[in-house]
């Protein structure tokens, strides 16, 4: 649900978590992003930084400048002044990402986890397919790659995108690892809860993994024009389309990345309208899978 009034939850002496609701829907993410943008624009006193996520925005503030209660009061006022999310229109880049689904690298990682940490673990793609009532792992690939993903936020690791499927016919859910994995190959595509992510580096993780992309999504060396002003490829409000490809294609792109000739496949002429999107949702039958 979307709460009538957002909840203000303290996190120690320096943080406030503002929860707008307790589900994953774009509306909530728009509210979170909207508040973060408004704080930046209004230069709210004492706020050091914000981190909007699916249904909430985390505020990091300086308690030497402003106390908890006065800041909460100010933020409540600010939230009141924001218009309805339907009015939001954003520039939205669309990235096409060649992706090897059911790839050998994530499989090796899962096998290693099963062998060393959790012998009862069901292999990831199979688990996600079963839990979502899909025919088999190939069906999972079809459904997972059948939609554009909305970059709702970045975090956990620099540049790691948390993404939501824009097409409700492709919504999947997956449990997270328990205990977490100690390593995940760079570029691995995974799912936890209802969100999809790409691991920017060789990292620990908790998402179910079943694909891999060959191109970097963060780069401290600025080897590609996309990283000229940013270290991270994505911004909130970008979209990603995973395009299933073969291991051979993956390796081809990997070589292009290595020699610096890789061109990111991205279109930058589109705007995303929340009103149009919501309207479209009313016109489709959400039940069937692809």
């Amino acid at each position, binding site marked *: 649900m979307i709460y009538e009034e957002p909840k203000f*939850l*303290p*996190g*120690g*002496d*320096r*943080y406030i*978590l503002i*929860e707008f609701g*307790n*589900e*994953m829907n774009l509306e909530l993410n728009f509210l979170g992003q909207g508040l*973060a943008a408004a704080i930046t624009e209004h230069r709210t006193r004492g706020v*050091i*930084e*914000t*981190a*909007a*996520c*699916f*249904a*909430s*925005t*985390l505020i*990091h503030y300086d*308690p*030497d400048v402003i*106390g*908890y209660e006065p800041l909460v009061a100010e933020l409540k006022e600010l939230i009141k002044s924001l218009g309805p999310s339907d009015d939001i229109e954003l520039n939205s880049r669309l990235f096409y990402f060649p992706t090897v689904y059911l790839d050998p690298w994530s499989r090796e990682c899962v096998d290693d986890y099963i062998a060393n940490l959790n012998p009862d673990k069901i292999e990831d793609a199979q688990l996600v397919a079963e839990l979502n009532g899909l025919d088999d792992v190939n069906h999972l690939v079809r459904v997972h790659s059948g939609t554009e993903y909305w970059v709702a*936020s*970045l*975090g*956990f*690791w*620099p*540049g*790691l995108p*948390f993404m939501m499927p824009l097409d409700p016919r492709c919504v999947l*859910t*997956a*449990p*997270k690892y*328990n*205990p*977490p994995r100690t390593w995940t190959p760079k570029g691995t595509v995974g799912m*936890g*809860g*209802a*969100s999809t992510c790409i691991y920017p*580096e060789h990292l620990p993780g*908790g998402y179910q993994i079943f694909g891999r992309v060959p191109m970097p999504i963060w780069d*401290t060396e600025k080897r590609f024009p996309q990283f000229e002003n940013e*270290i*991270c490829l994505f911004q*909130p409000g970008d979209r990603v389309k995973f395009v299933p490809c073969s291991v051979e294609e993956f390796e081809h792109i990997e070589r292009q990345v290595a020699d610096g000739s890789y061109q990111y496949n991205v279109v930058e002429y589109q705007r995303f309208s929340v009103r149009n999107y919501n309207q479209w949702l009313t016109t489709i039958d959400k039940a069937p899978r692809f």
Partner: protein
Amino acid sequence: MIEVIKPGLETSVQDYPGRLGYWNQGFPPSGPMDSWSFRLANLLVGNDVGAAGLECQYIGPTLKFNEATVIAVTGADMQAKIDGELVPLWESIAVAAGQVLEMSFAKVGVRGYIAIAGGIATEPWLNSRSTFHKAGVGGMEGHAIKAEQVIPVAAPTTTAVAGRKVIEAARPVFSVDKSWQVEVCRGPNDDWIDEAGHQRFINAEWKLSSKSDRTGFRLEGPEWTFTDKAHNKGPEHGSDPSNIIDQGYPIGAINLGGQTPIILMNDGPSMGGFINPYTVPSIAFWKLGQAKPAEILHFMVISVAEAQAIRQQINELCSEKSIVESR
């Protein structure tokens, strides 16, 4: 310039308060874990409290100073010696060109701090010199210092003076009985834990796991139990009671993954899908920074207002008022 002869176990360049403003891209602040000791070290040598210095963990480095300068060593007692002679902690020390500072293992505490007049002058990365090891950015080439590296030092803007001391009352008091009273505040997700779970958390002796680093401190202790909210929720939260729709994490959050609580430290993740029933406020970070693996943490709940008041007191202590000239 400082020449690294031996790097110590994991000695890194840090500044205070670290790399702020990039949490929404996933960059943590980094910075010294015991910022109380760190700030005092800088004050002793006449620097701003936040100037870049060295954080030493468990075993300190051996460093050769190529120019005469003034340094201060605070925090854990790593038996600092200059040219073989023990030097006092919490006091500014004159070092002649060519002299060698040698530190060994921490006898009391875990993290020692070295401030140098002028401050370390490595290239800032996203406005901070703090080292973020895991991403390989900041500090000396993104990692802990290595033997044979030369650490650049800025020219001091004021004349640093030897023999300045931190008064006893302004120093953090490290535990000597292997147990620590650590302040926590409830929230943000405290309503996911049932009353019995809260009681267990407060009454338990939590053992600091050896699987702890600047990213997170893992705790070993009793089971957690949850409220209905944790059990009856939409599938997008994830299936474990401790799962929640991915959310921003406070630094200091006691992040519960399954049954394992991990305190998110200076290099921690900015968001994820586990609940944070408690948060360790900034005022208790120095204790975490000085606690050894296998030592015991007792948590003591205080309000946000109390934590902010204590923060003011510590800020006061990290000021010139706490310094006396001893000669």
